[in-house]
């Protein structure tokens, strides 16, 4: 994993799409938020946001030798923390993008993200035991960090998923 940039209020991490990188990402996030004067509960929630978005990126990104990095931008301003995670996609990602769009719109449909989380828990709990699909990551980010989620696709087929949380 490389630290591309670590300015006073921002941190950019670039990593291989490898699950073993996640612990380092969480450690770097904790360190960064500590430098911003954020520790304890708030920092834990923000590190969870970075971790969940990066897990999704590693799971669903379409990595090639030319585009094989996950890039995480974290920025703290006076009132908000913004986490943006980017990864390459291609035509095979269409179903994931559709699910992502549906999920974010569905979460936004709830005034209280706790209600969305509970609904999702009920739904997931009824699935077969052997089904390994979680589908809880984004709604957990919305609920536990009170974050607003969004996404867009760049012209160069890069998916950018963001979460903005109040400090």
């Amino acid at each position: 994993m490389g630290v591309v940039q670590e300015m006073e209020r921002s941190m950019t991490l670039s990593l291989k799409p490898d699950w073993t990188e996640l612990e380092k990402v969480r450690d770097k996030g904790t360190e960064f938020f500590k430098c911003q004067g954020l520790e304890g509960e708030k920092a834990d929630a923000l590190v969870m946001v970075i971790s969940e978005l990066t897990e999704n990126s590693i799971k669903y990104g379409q990595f090639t030798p030319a585009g094989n990095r996950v890039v995480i931008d974290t920025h703290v301003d006076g009132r908000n923390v913004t986490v943006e995670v980017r990864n390459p996609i291609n035509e095979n990602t269409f179903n994931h993008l559709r699910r992502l769009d549906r999920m974010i719109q569905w979460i936004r449909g709830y005034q209280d993200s706790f209600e969305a989380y509970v609904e999702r828990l009920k739904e997931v709990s009824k699935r077969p035991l052997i089904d390994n699909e979680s589908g809880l990551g984004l709604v957990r980010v919305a609920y536990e960090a009170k974050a607003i989620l969004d996404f867009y696709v760049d012209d160069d087929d890069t998916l950018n998923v963001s979460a903005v949380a109040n400090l």
Partner: protein
Amino acid sequence: MENQKSYVNEPLRINVKEKADSISLEWTGKSVDRDPGKFITPILVNALSRTSHSNKRIVLDFQKLDYMNSSTITPIVKILDRAKRGSTRVTALYDKSLRWQDLAFSALEIFQTADERVEIKGM
């Protein structure tokens, strides 16, 4: 007599202690696997099946768990849902002084039953 066994999938450890009236599963470390259900589900299902013909309570003790990803929540809620719809007695314990645990586990109160057969307790 107490029967004890540890299951380890670094950095997660689940210590299973079987007593006369309960089977306790104590979780420690972090659950960060890509597919944690592969490790967790068989342990939970085994506990469920061992209590199906006895009146033992399953105690899921998360108080010493440092972190879990969202994929870890899935097998836990599946077991709680099955316990709620069945006859198994389950208690989930968490540390309510830890904000992340309070948020993550208090939401599981939706699986509680009125007769306290399935209960979620913040300690």
